[in-house]
C-alpha cells in the first residue's frame, strides 16, 4: 500500500507545485491522476520515488518511509517501483534490448552491468517482456529507430524488468495518437489486472481516465479537488477541475 501524507513541494523559484496532498493507494488499484497542465501531476509522481525531493510530508510504501530512506534504501525502494514517461526516456543510442535490461540495474552489481555481463536469466526475461509487448523483433534496433508507440512499449518492458509492485506512469500516452494510446493503455491495464501491479497514472484526457481507472484523483493548483470513482465525475465536477470554459473531448 502507498500512503501519501501532507505532501508539499515548493520549487526553488517559489512555485507551490503541491500543497499538503494526502491520499492512499490500495494494492491492485488503477489510480488515475487528472488535472490541467501545471496542476502538479508530474511533480506528485516524481515525489513518490524521490526523483524530485518533496519539501515536506511523507511517502510511505509498504510500511517504509520513502522520504526518510538513505540512498541505498532509496535505491531498493525505487527498484520495486516501475516508471514510464510521456517522452519514453529511452537511451536513444542504445539497442532496445539494452534499454530493457537497464530495468535490472537496481538488482545487479555496477561492475557486471557496466561490463555488459547480464545473466542469461535477465536476457531471457528481457526477450520475454519484449515478446509480451509485441516488439521482440526490434530487440536489436537502436531505440530511436522505433515509433513512439513502440518506444513506449519498450518503456513498459523496461519497467517490467523491475518486478514492480507499483507502476508510476506520467502521461504515458500524451505524445501518441488515439489508437496507439489505447494499445499502450491496454498493456498497462494488463499489468494491473493480470500481474496485480498497482498503477498510479497521470492522464490528460478524462475519457481515457474513465475507461481505465478504478479510481480518479483530480489535482488543481497542487491541491486534490476530487477523489472518487470514474463515473462520479459529472459536468459540474468536470468544470470544477478543468475550468468553466472547458469542453470534454472524447478519445476513442
Amino acid at each position, binding site marked *: 500500500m502507498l500512503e501519501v501524507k501532507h505532501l508539499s513541494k515548493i520549487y526553488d523559484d517559489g512555485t507551490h507545485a503541491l500543497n499538503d496532498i494526502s491520499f492512499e493507494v490500495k494494492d491492485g488499484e488503477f489510480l488515475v491522476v487528472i488535472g490541467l497542465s501545471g496542476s502538479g501531476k508530474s511533480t506528485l509522481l516524481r515525489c513518490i*520515488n524521490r*526523483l524530485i525531493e518533496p519539501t515536506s510530508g511523507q511517502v510511505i510504501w509498504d510500511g517504509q518511509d520513502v522520504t526518510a530512506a538513505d540512498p541505498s534504501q532509496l*535505491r*531498493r*525502494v*525505487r*527498484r*520495486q*517501483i*516501475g*516508471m514510464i*514517461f510521456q*517522452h*519514453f*526516456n*529511452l*537511451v*536513444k*543510442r*542504445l539497442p532496445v534490448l*539494452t534499454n530493457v535490461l*537497464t*530495468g*535490472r*540495474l*537496481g*538488482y545487479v552489481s*555496477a561492475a557486471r*552491468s*557496466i561490463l555488459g555481463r547480464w545473466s542469461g536469466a535477465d536476457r531471457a526475461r528481457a526477450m520475454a517482456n519484449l515478446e509480451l509487448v509485441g516488439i521482440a523483433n526490434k530487440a536489436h534496433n537502436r531505440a530511436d529507430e522505433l515509433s513512439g508507440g513502440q518506444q513506449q512499449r519498450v*518503456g513498459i518492458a*523496461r519497467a517490467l*524488468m*523491475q518486478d514492480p509492485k507499483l507502476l*508510476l506512469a506520467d502521461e504515458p500516452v500524451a505524445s501518441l495518437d488515439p489508437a496507439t494510446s489505447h494499445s499502450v493503455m491496454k498493456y498497462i491495464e494488463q499489468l494491473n489486472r493480470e500481474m496485480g501491479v498497482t498503477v498510479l497514472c497521470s492522464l490528460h484526457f478524462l475519457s481515457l481516465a474513465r475507461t481505465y481507472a478504478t479510481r480518479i484523483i483530480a489535482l488543481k493548483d497542487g491541491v486534490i479537488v476530487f477523489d472518487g470513482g470514474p463515473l462520479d465525475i459529472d459536468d459540474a465536477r468536470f468544470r470544477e477541475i478543468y475550468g468553466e470554459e472547458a469542453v470534454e473531448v472524447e478519445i476513442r
Partner: protein
Amino acid sequence: MSQADSLPRTSHNPTLATLLSLIVPGSGQAYTGKRERGLLILLTAGVLIFLLGWLNLWVLAPLALPFWLWQAWEARLYAQGRNPGTMRLVLSIALLVYAIGWQVTQIDLSRVITSAPKVVPFVTGLVQPSYFDRQIDTTSIPAAIQIPCGTTPNLSSATDTGPTMRLSAACANPGDRITISGAGFPADTEGEIWFQNAIGDRARARGTDGLLAFVADENGAFSIDALMPVVANSDPQTHRLEAQYVTRVGPLGLSETSRLVIGRMGETIAQALMATTLGAILAVFISFFAARNLMRVNPATLAVYYVTRTLLNILRAVEPLIMAIVFVVWVGLGPFAGVLALTVHSIAALGKLYSEAIESIEPGPIEAITATGANRLQVIWFGVLPQVWPPFIAFTVYRWDINVRMSTIIGFVGGGGIGFLLQQWIRLTDFRAAGAAIWAIALVVIALDFLSSEVRKRVV
C-alpha cells in the same frame, strides 16, 4: 516619398540646418531634434578626419565630399520633416572607409601583373616536385700537397686512367697560390675543390674569390688557382686537395627530398595525433567544469564554471602559431614545442565543444535510469555516456584533422614537422623541393579531411 507626407511638419529652417551641418557635420541634425544621429555623424566625421591625418592620407580627402554633402542635405530633409533613410549615409561613409583600407593595406593590383615573373620559378618548382631522382655518385680526385714546404718534399701523385689532377707545386706555405689543373674529367662537369688536412678534417678550398668551384671544358680539362690555408702544425705535413663532382647514375628512385618529406610528414601527423589525444583527455576532465548544467549546484561551483569558461575562451583566442613561438622559447626547437602548442589549443577548443555536448544532454534518460534504482555509476554509464560519446568522438576526430593542418605550418616557427622543411626550402629557393612538400601537405590534409568526415558521419 510617400511616408514624407505622414511625418509631422516641423518648424525648423531647412537652409539653417544645411548650413549648420556644412560647418559642423551633424549639427544640423541636432538642430532639427535628431540629437543622437547628429552626435553619431559628428563622431564619424571626427574619426575619419583623425584617420586621414594620422595616416597622412589627405589625398583621399575629396572622397569625404559625398559624406559631407549628403549629411548636410540630410539635415535639410529632416528640417523639412522628411525621412532621408540611412542607406545613403552609410554608403558615403563606406566609400571613405574602404578607400582608407585600400591605402593602408597597400593594395597594388598592377604589381600582381608586373611582378609575375618572380613567381615563375616557384610555379615551375610546384609543377616539377622533386620526388624522384637518380642515385648520386660522388667522385673525388685527390692530389697531395705538403704545407709548409719542408726539407724533403717527397710526394708522388698517383695517376691512372680517368680524371687526373696536378698541382703547380708539390709543397706550399700557407697563403701561397697553387694552380690546380685537371684533365680527363667528363666534359662540362661542374664540381667543387675540397681541402682535407693531415688528420682528415675537410673544408671547401678557397680561391681569391671565395669558395672554389670548377667547370671542366669540352675536353674535360680545367685550371684554377687555390690559396693554401693556414694549418695548425708548423712541421711539414701532407694534406690533400680534391676535385669532387657528382654524377647521377642508375634508374629513377625516391629522391632525398622525398625521404625528408615522408619523414617529416610522419612527424607532422604524429604531432597532431599526440596533441589531439593529450588535448582530448585533458579536455574531457575540464569540460565537466565548463558545463553549466552540472555546475549550477551552488554559487561556488558556478564560480568554477565561469573561471573555466573564461580561461578556455582566452586560450582559444591565442593562435597556435603564437603559442608555438612561446613553447619554442620554453622547451626548445622541435616537434615537442609544436605538440605542446597544439595540445593547449586543443584543450581550449575541445573543452568548449565537449562542455556544450554535456550541456545538451537530455535529462529524460537519466531520470529513467535513476528511477530503476540504479546507482550513480550506473546512471552515468547508461544515462550520460551514451549521450556524450558520439559528439565527443566526432569533435575529437575533427580536431585531429585541424591539428594536422596546423602542424604543417607550426614548423615555420620552429615547432617541428614538415613546415620546418618547407620554410627552409623556400628560403634556399629550392622550389622543386618546396613543391614536393606542398603537394604532400595538400594530399595528407585532403585525405584526413575525408577520413574525419567519414568517421563523423558514422558516429553521429
